[in-house]
């Protein structure tokens, strides 16, 4: 066991951290979010050139990372800047391609920053279930015809290509019979309704009506996509949790700063024990989150992956939300303004509870999975 980062990974973290610090202040972030695309293509290209997209994928697929710790390091730093560029969407869709071993040419374009992907899996009725897929793919000539609706597709409005899940067999909730397709976003029959999310990102409701795709748009094996979907889900859970930790770090830092400067009753409010003790608890919970993130990152490829992902996501929902709320409460009125940054960090942390399963969802999954072996070593 070793709890220190390799030199290369530390350099990666430093590089992203430096970008956020030097070139991505909160005003820039808001400007990017308010732009037509909802992000900056210039920043996206710049980060692609720095190799940030390649860091999310393994060498076997042309990347130079792709382990749990690569993903967590990058997203933790991105979370510190509330970076709105579509890293998550491309991690999700790209992971499906990488894990299936198909469409490697497209993944190359993604890593070069020339092609944007989005992952269209969730549906209006699926909530956090991975197997609840009502969208259907019927055989049509040598290809398939897709019909259905996809919900809250992150960055779905600006993607060039969509990774779409659809049922080629089985009932609505069956794990077997789900397939993934790579579909051009401008294909006939696709209707994309774009909208902002409360925390400053973009998503889309996507309707597919008689969308014809060729046979080679299939990702992996027909009807057996559930393993890919679970893998994508694990990578996404890890990524947004790391992002939440990055946002929590900034929120705590800002709050601590405020406690030292804001004066009431003639003293800095940080002199009040009522606030000190709550702050101490926030520090403790933050370290717990960091540990759960390490456990999850180290188990991304292990047979204990799902337990550790759920433990992490439960803690992000439970402790993360509490920290976010306390950051607002301890600041007082100023945190309620749009202008002051801490509220935006809090919004991101709380909204992350709504992605890939919330606190309760993951608590129930932990119960279903049963306990991890108490004395077994984790395997990475």
């Amino acid at each position: 066991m070793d709890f220190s980062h390799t030199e290369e990974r530390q350099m990666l973290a430093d590089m992203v951290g430096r970008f956020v610090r030097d070139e991505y202040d909160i005003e820039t972030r808001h400007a990017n979010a308010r732009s037509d695309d909802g992000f900056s293509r210039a920043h996206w290209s710049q980060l692609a050139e720095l190799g940030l997209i390649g860091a999310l994928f393994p060498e076997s697929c042309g990347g130079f990372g792709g382990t749990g710790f690569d993903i967590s390091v990058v997203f933790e730093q991105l979370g510190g800047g509330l970076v709105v560029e579509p890293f998550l969407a491309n991690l999700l869709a790209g992971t499906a391609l990488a894990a299936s071993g198909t469409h490697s040419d497209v993944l190359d374009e993604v890593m070069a920053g020339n092609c944007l992907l989005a992952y269209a899996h969730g549906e209006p009725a699926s909530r956090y279930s991975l197997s609840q897929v009502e969208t259907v793919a019927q055989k049509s000539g040598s290809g398939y015809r897709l019909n259905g609706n996809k919900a809250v597709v992150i960055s779905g409005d600006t993607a060039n290509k969509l990774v779409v899940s659809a049922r080629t067999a089985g009932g609505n909730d069956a794990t077997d019979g789900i397939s993934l397709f790579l579909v051009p976003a401008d294909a006939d029959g696709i209707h994309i309704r774009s909208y902002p999310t409360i925390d400053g990102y973009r998503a889309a409701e996507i309707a597919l009506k008689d969308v014809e795709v060729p046979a080679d748009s299939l990702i992996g094996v027909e009807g057996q996509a559930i393993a890919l979907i679970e893998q994508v889900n694990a990578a996404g859970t890890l990524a947004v949790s790391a992002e939440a930790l990055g946002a929590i770090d900034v929120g705590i830092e800002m709050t601590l700063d405020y406690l030292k400067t804001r004066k009431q009753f003639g003293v800095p409010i940080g002199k009040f024990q009522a606030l000190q003790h709550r702050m101490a608890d926030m520090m403790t919970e933050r370290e717990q989150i960091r540990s759960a993130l390490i456990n999850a990152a180290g188990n991304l490829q292990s047979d204990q992956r799902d337990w550790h992902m759920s433990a992490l996501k439960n803690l992000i929902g439970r402790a993360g939300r509490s920290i976010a709320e306390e950051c607002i409460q301890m600041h007082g009125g100023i945190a309620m303004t749009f202008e002051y940054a801490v509220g935006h960090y809090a919004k991101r942390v709380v909204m992350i509870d709504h992605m890939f399963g919330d606190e309760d969802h993951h608590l129930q999954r932990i119960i279903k999975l049963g306990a991890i072996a108490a004395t077994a070593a984790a395997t990475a």
Partner: protein
Amino acid sequence: MDLNYTHEEQAFQLEVRQFLAEKLPPEISGKVKSKKRLTKQDSETWHAILNAAGYLNAHWLVEFGGRGWNAIQRDIFDVEANAAGAPRVVPFGLNMLAPVLMAFGSQEQQSYHLPRILDGTNWWCQGYSEPGAGSDLASLKMSAVRDGDEYVLNGQKTWTTLGQHANWIFCLVRTSREGKPQQGISFMLVDMDTPGVEVRPIILLEGTHEVNEVWFTDVRVPAENLVGEENKGWTYAKYLLVHERSGIAGVGDALASIEHLKQIAREQKKDGKPLAEDALFAARLAEIEIDLAAMRTTNMRIMQAASDGAPPGPEVSMLKIKGTVLRQSINDLTRRALGPYAMPFVSEALDIGYNEEPIGPDYANPVAADYFNHRKTSIYGGSNEIQRNIISKLMMGL
């Protein structure tokens, strides 16, 4: 980062398991697992077995005969020993006084006392708290007045854990009333056979004799029993407290307690089904397991960050809070798992030799007592509120 055990760590885990399987006496582990009372003899037996194997002081610095175990090795030993039902080692000499002597004691003190801690000749207890000095430890009043080659001690210590078994006590005493209260404190080693030392039991709320009052009336202590410099005791006291807290996360104990709770939950029935299958119970248990898995890693990270032998920083206060609250929540859930059978308590049934039928399930009797007893953990060693003060001051600069 790598969460895999190295080959060395795997081999170490195997070595520890083998040692426990061969050397831990079944009658002792049986008592631990069934929560029966351990005798002084039990503690001494296990202490001697650990010492013979070189495990007792394995976390000591190599130059003092230790093996310089790192955080991973300490975690492995802690988890394996608890899973096997090994008793907790009495920590006062081994984990509290010894580091202070290594850092601040004279060579004579080191060479006299350290071997006697290991071979069990001396059973140490801790003279910190006084009736008027709890969380405000620096307000302590017990006086030590220099008289020739001796100090004369007068005053009272309290909450002295297992003082009834001890023959030596390390004390914080007041040698000066000038300046800030912290500036007049000294660290003194006292042979409890010295005339004027009197130990009186305090019975805890669940009825056990675990702690004591220790009274000092004109107790004459040789001046060479002063540790370090006069009036510098507060520095040594704080150093000791950080070491006291370094094992405080109690990961191994928590894991073993959860296994015990799960076994109870499989046997207890609610609405005709095992309690373990009850959704609300399962959710409460799952939350504890999530927090514990994270704390195990937090513990190793914090301990590893402290370089070999150096005391861990104020981060250890986070472990004290999290570790104690987590174990209290396990005690609480175990108590609730029993339903009405948490109520009967036959104290004698905790002793070996009690032959009557248990009331209710045989595991029920000690559970509520354990729950009440463990309320102490968020109070002792610097209450959790004091820990939050430490975090505020030292980690956050508030």
